[in-house]
């Protein structure tokens, strides 16, 4: 049995440990971004008293003449075509309410799977008040079986062409755009009705469980160090964590070490 107590350590600002030369322009609501009126206003900004003021806390992004502020920590704002993982919270007459970590609950109309549980769906439309309408496009989506859900901030999930990843280490990962990440054991044979009605409740083997737990801890450590989540970063982090026992990954010093190694590998790969 293991029990570890420690004194808290102040967190180091990330830019120091990264050694980044260019610091991002961070603003809080009310900060002036620029007094130059030639720029177009994007999301997260508004014009007041001849200057451009930020309305959310985040980093300033500039694309030619467009200035916008990208919020660092926000609830999920749906976009058409996004893949999300949600939890059914309410069953109403013709639709279900799905919790997707957004400002309002999303709705799932009855033309999809019937059973309550974890559901994978695609955003069909966004209502004016921000509520999102989902639909499960094909039988590939639907109710999820056994696995682990990790909730992270939506801004950390990178937008990619595909969100289903079968990792070579033996488990599969679904990166929902809303920040809900589902880790599950790779099914041995692809069934035709993969989004089936009955979830597979057989016990999962120990080897698969270890992979899933390790992946879960890796994702949590990437999130704590504010790294973007996509299949490559998760895979590199998994490989960097292999020398350590699974439960040690969550210790702060080992977490930093693993994420640093992941970061370096990603930089090497890009450069």
């Amino acid at each position, binding site marked *: *049995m293991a029990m*570890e107590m420690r004194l808290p350590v102040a967190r180091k600002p990330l830019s120091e440990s990264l050694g980044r030369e260019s610091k991002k322009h961070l603003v809080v609501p009310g900060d002036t971004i620029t007094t130059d009126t030639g720029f177009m206003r994007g999301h997260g900004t508004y014009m007041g008293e001849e200057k451009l003021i930020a309305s959310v806390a985040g980093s300033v992004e500039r694309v030619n003449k467009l200035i916008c502020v990208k919020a660092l920590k926000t609830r999920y704002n749906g976009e058409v075509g996004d893949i999300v993982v949600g939890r059914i919270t309410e069953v109403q007459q013709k639709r279900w309410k799905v919790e997707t970590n957004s400002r309002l609950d999303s709705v799932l109309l009855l033309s999809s799977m019937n059973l309550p549980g974890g559901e994978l769906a695609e955003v069909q439309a966004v209502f004016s008040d921000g509520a999102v309408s989902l639909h499960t496009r094909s039988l590939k989506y639907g109710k999820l079986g056994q696995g682990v859900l990790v909730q992270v901030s939506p801004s950390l999930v990178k937008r990619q062409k595909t969100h289903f990843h079968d990792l070579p280490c033996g488990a599969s990962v679904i990166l929902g755009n809303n920040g809900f990440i589902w880790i599950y054991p790779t099914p041995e044979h692809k069934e035709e009705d993969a989004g089936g009605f009955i979830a597979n409740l057989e016990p999962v083997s120990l080897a698969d469980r270890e992979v*899933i737990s390790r992946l879960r801890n890796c994702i949590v450590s990437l999130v704590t160090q504010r790294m973007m989540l996509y299949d490559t970063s998760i895979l590199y982090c998994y490989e960097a964590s292999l020398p350590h026992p699974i439960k040690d990954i969550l210790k702060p010093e080992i977490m930093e070490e693993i994420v640093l190694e992941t970061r370096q590998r990603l930089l090497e790969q890009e450069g």
Partner: protein
Amino acid sequence: MASVALSEAEKVYIVHGVQPLKITVLKEDLRVDGRGCEDYRCVDVETDVVSNTSGSARVKLGHTDILVGVKAEMGTPKLEKPNEGYLEFFVDCSANATPEFEGRGGDDLGTEIANTLYRIFNNKSSVDLKSLCISPREHCWILYVDVLLLECGGNLFDAISIAVKAALFNTRIPRVRVLEDEEGSKDIELSDDPYDCIRLSVENVPCIVTLCKIGYRHVVDATLQEEACSLASLLVSVTSKGVVTCMRKVGKGSLDPESIFEMMETGKRVGKVLHTSLQNILHKEESLGTKRQKVGFLG
């Protein structure tokens, strides 16, 4: 208690992780975050975080965040125990922890935790109450222990008991003298030196170990998801020597007497290790003295 909604499949996954497939294979215990059935999450303990209290401590156990402040005030002893001071517990579940606690939502949980704390301290040896007496039947120290729940991430009772013990260790009660005049009227004099104080001995202060029954095994330090899968839990309050001061069952499910016995043994074992780690970290913190970098709430 704050809880998360889980689907059937997720619950099945968690339960199968805790209990092995075959009863003979006892080695297989792998929870969702890789811990074994008797492993705790990493605990961060810091004392002396609130400056206007006599003693304070903050404990972070995974996502559970507890702040305890102890204030020592003078008052009259209870009628049935004229030679002793006493402790008063108050637990505030702040709406910070979960929206369910908004308004009066957290009161039920708060009273439940406070009653449990009263029960575990309700014996002669936990805290030396006689040392809190100033003059019998007239003056004594009352220690008001206030617990604030900042974030709820499962395993509240354990974290609260660790924080209470750490705060009592950190408590500094000013030394007073009772002067008697010729006419017989008593005067209480506070010593001039602000550092002249008495400290409580927390050797026998118990800590709570919560054992949640999942399937037919039990786990220590359950997360919110694991608590949602367990129907019954046993709270065992253990001192550093392994003596059980109080036991309480919570939850809708039933517990077999044999499993209660097993859980109690596990609780005693785990409790002893918990106490040794806590003593070590508290002494280490104290030995750092003024060199210690205070992290507080902005770290």
